[in-house]
């Protein structure tokens, strides 16, 4: 088969979003803030949302990840900007159904993000595509609008710090 099947995953618009992500960075006036990790691969996604009443007035993401997770985050931010929380939550559901569900859905409301349907053929990469949407869902639903993912069972780093790579 070789790499031809990869075209279904790495569509041009996905590569474009990954190379030039939209809404990449930080917000000065975020109302909702979340950091999500994909512990199996080390991807990190920081998502900030600025709500104005019920509207997503601004949104930004940072962190590091693969082409799919970065592109998905970029497309998600495009899709939900200026939408109401209810509309955004509906999009979260539509996206999830599109990627992991078995019912046909009208994915047109997702904008560019609809092309990620191709991920279906690559089960190992589904988590990469869904990370940003899960983060959005968490950010919109957490009690105090900031979500901590797991408490760190931390060892005070005091002395190790001096042996850090320099």
């Amino acid at each position, binding site marked *: 088969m070789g790499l031809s099947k990869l075209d279904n995953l*790495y569509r041009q618009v996905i*590569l474009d979003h990954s190379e030039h992500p939209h809404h990449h960075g930080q917000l000065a006036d975020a109302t909702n803030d979340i950091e999500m990790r994909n512990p199996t691969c*080390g991807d990190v996604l920081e998502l900030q949302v600025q709500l104005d009443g019920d509207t997503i007035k601004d949104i930004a993401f940072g962190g590091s990840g693969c*082409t799919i997770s970065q592109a998905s985050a970029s497309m998600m931010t495009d899709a939900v900007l200026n939408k109401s929380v209810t509309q955004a939550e509906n999009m979260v559901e539509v996206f999830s159904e599109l990627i992991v569900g078995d019912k046909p859905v009208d994915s047109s409301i997702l904008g560019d993000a609809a092309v990620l349907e191709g991920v279906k053929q690559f089960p190992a990469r589904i988590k990469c595509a869904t990370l940003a949407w899960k983060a959005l869902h968490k950010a919109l639903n957490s009690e105090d609008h900031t979500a901590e993912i797991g408490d760190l*069972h931390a*060892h005070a780093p005091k002395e*190790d710090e001096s*042996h850090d790579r320099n």
Partner: protein
Amino acid sequence: MVKQLKTIKTDFPILDQKVNDEQLVYLDNAATTQKPKAVVEALDHYYYHDNANVHRGVHTLAERATEQFENAREKTAAFINAPSKRNILFTRGTTQSLNWIAASYGEQNIKAGDEIVISYMEHHSNLVPWQQLALRKHATLKYIGMHDDGTLDMAQAKELITDKTKIVSIAHVSNVLGVVNPLKALAALAHEHGAIMVGDGAQSVPHMPVDVQDLDVDFYAFSGHKMLGPTGIGGLYGKEALLNAMPPIEFGGEMIDFVDLYESSWKELPWKFEAGTPDISGAIGMGAAIDYLEAIGLDQVQKHEQAIVDYVLPKLLAIDDLEVYGPQDPSKHTGVIAFNLKGLHPHDLATALDMEGVAVRAGHHCAQPLMKYLSVPATARASFYLYNDFNDADRLVDAIKAAKEFFKNGAI
């Protein structure tokens, strides 16, 4: 009988299949290895003919099961040159072995202010148990760093290992950098300061002759599934005096000598630590894996893998934009090779290789502190074993080149 490494693939039926329409090249051996027919047949035979619980019955099957189970322990002891089968505890694998040392020896011996020394290249299994022990005991965890080529900085080890040090625990072979760490020298250093030396043998025992007495380690941990055996079984070697002084971690059947209403006594080594029905078939399967490896000879396995590294490492280094971690000198690099293609996330690379039938791992390899140390979020990793050959190495190199072309012609 000396097995021919050239024809060995036929012993592993799983390797004879197509993945994504391409002949499978399995290069994820550091994660887990494939099983030869001999191991699968040993499991079959045990369940079809000899299955019974061990140490519990007088009937014939119970006797057979017990004999085979204990025979596997003898084989395991001989395999790493432990003095006796009393030194070998069966565990679930390296992770459980290391956790047992921390939970038993560590719990008993570590006090506030003591120091535990590990390195930046440790697998989470040889890091988190010590980190959490240090946290519970208000002890300090210290990390030895590496030189630029990924080899352990022994000068720093000498500074960090002091009379305050109680435990030194280091991987014998790194599961990312592919370096062999000087465990014998580290053990000598630890002992000079009255500390014990723990070796994480997950990536060494399957790939090279290991002699725990020569290394003079106090504990040594390894996994059956990384050496052709089944999952769910592994070993913990410990010096007898240490194991004798340690309290059991789990209690129940099998491990008791005598139980009264308000007190109990424990069986002698090694059974004192093995509470409950053990993984009998797993142990027997690991014994069969050891037989298989010994028929070839671990020195031959090591030589074979070294020949592949000598062949493939220069080819990988010759690919523009491919960064290879760990030593660039093949003689210092084992068959675990981590790499990244510049500008491409390792997940994307691994998916592309998978489309070419080449199975590699991508991720942080359970070594997040090492990833941070290397300043990369993740890497791809190819790891070879005795059934891999030069053709597999070529397929890897070609697949990386094809992936590079694909993503270059795309927008990346």
